[in-house]
């Protein structure tokens, strides 16, 4: 019984310790960001691995999500003779919710896990300690460019997801199911608001990019430097990112759309 309570306390203390380490780590990373802007080549290299290589996955997922929304939306709307509203349904679902959220989940799986594994292995093979020996701060040199690359890539990826998804809905709705092309776009343009919908979607993806990349680089930096530790850290990145994204999505949605 005593051992059980002790374990419970240990878990709690561990949790707060990790939260504290994570926050201090984030602060150190943010301090290192100006240095990244002086060495844009580091950033470009990370944008390649974080952003460009995720692009195809995001675009194809967006296409299929849009096509599914087109099919599902049509089947529901046609009962009410309202299939002209298909454009609104597809655009609002993607721009407000699915674009930022699905992109963030895919991003955590594709780029976040890779970041954790890369940084974790650097730590396990003592490259990070090596840098410290050479008086190079690994947080500034290794972590900060990766963090900034993830933060910048996410809204771009979400935008690509959204645009491709809306065209996916267009192909299915207008191309296959025969919704009128004019009303698909006109209703969409009448109902989707630039600031309320599109900008809020961009804000969401910025927040998700920040959180997912933070979790990924921190788990990598904080990993137990063994092969098992790296594997666990990678798993934790994906799991924690998914939780964080979904929970934050609720909070952000309540803040943005809950008022009326």
């Amino acid at each position, binding site marked *: 019984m005593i051992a059980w309570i002790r374990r419970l306390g240990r878990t709690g203390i561990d949790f707060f310790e990790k939260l504290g380490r994570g926050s201090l780590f984030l602060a150190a990373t943010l301090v290192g960001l100006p240095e990244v802007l002086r060495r844009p080549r580091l950033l470009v290299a990370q944008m390649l691995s974080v*952003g460009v290589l995720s692009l195809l996955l995001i675009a194809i997922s967006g296409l299929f999500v849009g096509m599914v929304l087109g099919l599902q939306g049509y089947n529901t709307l046609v009962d009410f003779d309202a299939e002209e509203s298909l454009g609104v349904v597809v655009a609002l679902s993607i*721009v407000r919710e699915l674009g930022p959220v699905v992109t963030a989940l895919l991003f955590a799986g594709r780029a976040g896990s890779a970041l954790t594994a890369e940084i974790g292995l650097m730590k396990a093979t003592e490259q990070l300690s090596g840098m410290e020996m050479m008086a190079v701060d690994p947080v500034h040199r290794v972590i900060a460019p990766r963090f900034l690359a993830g933060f910048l890539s996410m809204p771009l990826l979400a*935008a690509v997801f959204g645009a491709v998804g809306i065209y996916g809905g267009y192909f299915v709705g207008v191309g296959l199911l025969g919704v009128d092309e004019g009303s698909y776009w006109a209703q969409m*343009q009448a109902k*989707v*608001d630039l600031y309320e919908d*599109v900008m809020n979607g961009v804000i969401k993806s910025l927040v998700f990019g920040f959180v997912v990349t933070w979790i990924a680089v921190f788990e990598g930096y904080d990993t137990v430097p063994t092969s098992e530790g790296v594997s666990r850290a990678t798993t934790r990145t994906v799991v924690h990112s998914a939780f964080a994204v979904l929970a934050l999505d609720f909070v952000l949605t309540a803040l943005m759309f809950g008022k009326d």
Partner: protein
Amino acid sequence: MKQSKTTELLVGMFVAAGLAALFVLAMQVSNLSTLSQGNSYQLKARFDNIGGLKVRSPVTAGGVRVGRVAGIEYDDQRYQAVVTLLVEDKYDHFPDDTSASIFTAGLLGEQYISLDPGGSEEYLQDGSEIEITQSALVLEKLVSKFLFSKTSEGK
């Protein structure tokens, strides 16, 4: 640290693709292209009941969108709703006996304000008030009117 041109090219294309997608979302998907580009002037109108009218609802004349609803307030002195309309500057020839009515687009559609020009020689200015208004039809009131008239017929 030497970096190949290909990396820079790929990243450049990625950023361009992302920005292009944002541009598509702004221009093609959202209402940016239908927002009024020029300036607009304000009109006020009082309604007994605005039904489901909302801020940003369209204001039309002859079915053409000429502006939007900018604000809705309740005047507790006259027990009426005060609606502020923003009408685009290029439509500045509404006579001052123009009437404003709240209609519904389609059976379940959103509500909008329709302006019907009168025959006066004076035109509405910025800040003037539309005198003749017709409130929104509330379905429950309509049904109860119908039922009352039915029961009074039956007597």
